[in-house]
């Protein structure tokens, strides 16, 4: 009797919690629903009161306008270039360093790793003034490469990949060494394939991180043609054009690539994000 009662109580608490969770999940998605549907309305319907909860007439003219009146295609390509190249470079440099920290014995290894990881918590934004002056000295202001290099300096990749190298068995490496493979060949042909899941997670997490980065790209990309998608789309907020549907179409253009990436690679986010948090 007691048992049954406890069971019932448990169920109702659980059910109620989950109803609340679902309610807020839907509520949290509402702004995005409003973004998409508004972007498809014409300029008078979008501000109509009471509002149309579902567009009465669908129009793609706002999207056409975003691409015609703004260099939105150029911005998209800039973002792809900046996020893509930053990530490829980061994967190369940090997989090399993580491999050394995990498998090679060299003096000062642990101290160096601690110093690297300590820098993880410092956001690059707080050092934006000296960083900007370095960019000036190297002629990297108003230059896409100025947006790329500081991103490659993060220790995040080393931290993430070291865990993957740590769990790769030493025996494989030793076997390769006995077969006469040099360190570089062992790294490229034996070890890298083993940590592929880690590289996948790093690739996606960092790509999204750079794609959505704002402040640094804002100060580096000064000409209209040199802006990235996030920075360019944000300028629509100050655009004199009073049409809200046009602004919402711009925001949708900026949102869609990341939505696609998320739907395709959801499990990478779950795994990659958790690496820093759960330390067994």
């Amino acid at each position: 009797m007691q048992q049954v009662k406890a069971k019932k109580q448990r169920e109702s608490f659980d059910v109620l919690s989950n109803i609340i969770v679902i309610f807020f999940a839907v509520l949290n998605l509402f702004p995005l629903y409003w973004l998409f549907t508004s972007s498809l309305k014409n300029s008078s319907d979008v501000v109509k009161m009471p509002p149309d909860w579902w567009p009465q007439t669908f129009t793609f003219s706002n999207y056409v306008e975003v691409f015609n009146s703004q260099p939105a295609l150029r911005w998209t390509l800039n973002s792809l270039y900046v996020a893509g190249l930053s990530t490829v470079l980061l994967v190369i440099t940090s997989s090399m360093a993580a491999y050394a920290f995990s498998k090679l014995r060299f003096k000062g290894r642990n101290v160096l790793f601690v110093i690297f990881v300590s820098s993880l918590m410092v956001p690059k934004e707080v050092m934006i003034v000296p960083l900007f002056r370095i960019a000036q000295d190297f002629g990297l202001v108003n230059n896409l490469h100025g947006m790329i290099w500081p991103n490659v300096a993060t220790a995040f990749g080393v931290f993430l990949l070291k865990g993957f190298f740590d769990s790769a068995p030493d025996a494989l490496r030793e076997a390769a060494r006995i077969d006469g493979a040099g360190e570089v060949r062992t790294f490229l042909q034996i070890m890298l394939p083993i940590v592929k899941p880690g590289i996948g997670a790093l690739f996606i997490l960092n790509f999204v991180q750079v794609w959505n980065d704002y402040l640094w790209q804002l100060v580096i990309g000064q000409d209209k043609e040199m802006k990235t998608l996030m920075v360019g789309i944000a300028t629509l907020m100050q655009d004199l054009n009073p049409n809200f549907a046009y602004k919402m179409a711009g925001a949708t253009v900026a949102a869609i690539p990341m939505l696609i990436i998320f739907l395709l690679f959801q499990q990478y986010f779950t795994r990659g994000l958790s690496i820093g948090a759960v330390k067994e």
Partner: protein
Amino acid sequence: MKLRNPYLKENITGYLFVLPQFLLFLLFIVYPIIEGIRLSLYKVQYQQETFVGFDNYATLFSDPVFFKSIINTVIFVVFIVILTVGFSLFVASAVFDKNAKYVSFIRGSYYIPVMVSMVVMSMVWSFLLSPANGLISYAAREMELGIVNLLGNKSTVLPVIILVTFATNVGQAIILYIASMIGVPKDLFEAAEVDGASRFKVIFQILIPLVKPTTIYITIINIIAVLKIFVVIQLLTGGGPNNASVTMMYYLYNNAFKFNQLGVASAVGVIMFLITMLLSVPQLRAMFKDK
């Protein structure tokens, strides 16, 4: 050529593998920190730098706007972090033991705003909150609350920014908690259930204490993320009305790139750097505990 000393050889190989990352680290992280500290002691006008000691810091601490920016930043950190930890604990503990499809639906719904970025979410919210055309203002009029301008009002601007930032970013904490709770061994719950403990009790007395490392991690990364809060301020309020929503990062940005006060901006950066270092000590200690 073969090196005679195998230890020396492994040392050199190690350094060579670390070298590219290390050079970038020196140039874009270590050097800017040192240079930032140096610049904070100088008055910088274009190419000319004059040593002024702690004048920039003195300027900062006599500027009421800087104080306002500290207070606002602290308010944002405290409220957003408490909301984020509390709500994500609630969501994760409610769903973590349900079927995988449902878990991934909940995870996705809360994480999608994180994915589409603060820039996009700020743009939507600025439309929703627009006094003339926004849905929220319309709802307020329908409920006969009169004309509301939540972002133009000193007493509502901070709560609105807190809510928008929290709603946009809570998904990350939810993903972390769910992953951590799924990792808790099932027999712990079963033992408690045999003893007749309610789910409520199991959550509070077993689950939440067990995910404490995740709580620490989420707290710290969120404090640091909110400390540099910028996008939502620039796009929603521009620090207004009348500096009511100015934050440290926004203050730094304006001094550096609008008012050309590079020394003062560097001093703000140094202060923020010290705060982040101080805050990350517990996390770093936890990460190296098993070393």
